[in-house]
């Protein structure tokens, strides 16, 4: 494996039902109050479940993505010339219009063009971040903008409802006894990644570094995770190896946990497989219990939350907790935010197809 210094995160922006902007995400996850509410955006009369974490008065996805890229670039203090050298990686739900959406987004935001569009379900955005860090590390490019977006809409909502994936009790309870499933949520985010040298050259803000990353498959089932968590464990291992960081140095895991019975247990099994008994001593929470599952955008929204929380030194709670589940023997953060013991954190994501990613960030 090639040695690489990681990629600097120099600007972020996100919206979710917790609010608009990075600070709203941090305040929302530290407040610990779930943002689920009755869906007013479309008719849910034919659905079993009628709640989601939606942000009032959202614009069209293309507009929200453009705004996210603009704000993240401004936060990174990129001038038009800097932007013009930065290609776009976009994560979004697949469909006939998505490549055009990416091209137009890059044009509208003055970027160097759309480089790649990820349609890998719930690891789309995290795969884009891993690829961005790899491309920067390989020296292909100095700077990349990763954007991702999902706004709760009727088709995916109906599919998740039909698949009985949505929590019928209106709450997401990751790793908890009595968990009943996931709830969808809005998420639009953008992150500017740069090589350390490029960031240093222009004295850019440095929020954090993507120090390690891993992508691996379960090879188990079209849409169920490997109960032993083998693919996710390999992704976690790869992320730590790239970063040269030991499990004992990881101070927080922002888990994929969706509140779904078998998948949360598989994630716990993956952490046990990767780290053994130590897995039970690392603080873990899934902020999907607060902002919902933003599908293709989840990996970027959760990366932003993870970076902000670790920088702030406080780790968000795992809301919705009813009690321990022996299948999830983890140190789940309950009741109140916990002080971050280290500046290193993992953001994990898993998806249909047995796709898994791990992103390891270090607070600057």
């Amino acid at each position, binding site marked *: 494996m090639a040695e690489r210094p990681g990629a600097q995160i120099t600007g972020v922006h996100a919206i979710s039902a917790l609010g608009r902007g990075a600070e709203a995400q941090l305040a929302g996850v530290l407040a610990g109050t779930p943002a689920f509410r009755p869906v007013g955006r479309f008719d849910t009369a034919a659905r079993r479940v009628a709640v989601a974490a939606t942000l009032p008065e959202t614009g069209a996805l293309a507009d929200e993505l453009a705004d996210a890229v603009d704000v993240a670039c401004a936060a990174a203090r990129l001038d038009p010339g800097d932007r013009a050298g930065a290609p776009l990686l976009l994560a979004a739900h*697949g*469909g006939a219009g*998505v490549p055009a959406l990416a091209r137009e987004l890059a044009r509208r935001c003055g970027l160097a063009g759309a480089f790649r569009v990820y349609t*890998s379900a719930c690891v789309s955005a995290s795969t884009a971040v891993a690829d961005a860090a790899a491309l920067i590390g390989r020296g292909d490019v100095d700077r990349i903008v990763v954007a991702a977006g999902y706004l709760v809409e009727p088709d995916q909502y109906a*599919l998740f409802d*039909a698949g009985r994936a949505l929590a019928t009790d209106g709450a997401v309870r990751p790793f908890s006894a009595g968990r009943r499933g996931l709830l969808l949520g809005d998420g639009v985010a953008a992150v500017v990644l740069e090589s350390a040298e490029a960031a240093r050259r222009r004295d850019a803000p440095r929020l954090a570094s993507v120090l390690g990353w891993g992508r691996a498959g379960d090879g*188990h089932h079209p849409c169920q995770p490997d109960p032993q968590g083998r693919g996710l464990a390999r992704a976690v291992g790869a992320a730590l190896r790239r970063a040269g960081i030991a499990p004992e140095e990881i101070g927080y895991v922002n888990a994929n946990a969706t509140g779904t019975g078998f998948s949360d247990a598989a994630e716990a099994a993956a952490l046990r497989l990767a780290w053994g008994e130590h897995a039970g001593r690392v603080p873990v929470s899934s902020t999907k219990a607060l902002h919902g599952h933003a599908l293709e955008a989840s990996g970027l929204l959760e990366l932003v939350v993870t970076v902000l929380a670790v920088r702030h030194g406080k780790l968000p709670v795992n809301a919705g907790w009813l009690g321990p589940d022996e299948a999830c023997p983890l140190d789940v953060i309950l009741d109140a935010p916990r002080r971050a013991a280290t500046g290193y954190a993992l953001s994990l994501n898993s998806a*249909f197809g047995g796709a898994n990613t791990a992103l390891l960030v270090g607070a600057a």
Partner: protein
Amino acid sequence: MTGEPDRAGAGTSADGLRVLAEARWPEPGDDAPPTLPGFVHSTFSPVVAAVAERCLTRRHGERPAPQPVGVRTAVVLVSAAGDRSGADHVHATVARGGRPGPLFFFQSVPNSVAGHVAARWGLGGPVVCVAPIGDPLAEGMAQAGLLRYDGDADETLLIMIEQVPEDAGAGVTAGTPGDAPGTRALAVLLGGGDTR
């Protein structure tokens, strides 16, 4: 499709990848793709599974792929529009206030059939689905090259597929002069050499 899926080419790419096996859908003699249990209504997933099966069989002979190469093989699926007919069916059902069948949930993303292929062949590398901005073969090769450079995969099963809008359950009539093409796909197994 944008960029013909009928060419994989020979030789070695800039990323050091070479073609270890390739297959197309349709090939002479193909009719409808084999039914794929758990996947309904659309030819998208059955064609992906069929072309992947054909390609991997040409390389490995029989399932599963030998280890350790299998666990180090990625699946990269490239499609600009994805499962058009499945998405259109869901959209029409929802628009008229109906409920899609539960199987549509499980096949609503291209990852599902990629995961089916990975499970069937014991492939444990990354699963990545992309919608190409330009030439799908070039983007797929670049993705495979990045995964190999990066160390997450040694080999990549690259599948490129585009589905014509009206090609739902009717399947593909191959090799009939003058017929409009149906769902077409190309699968290429890429690697750096003989890693078996």
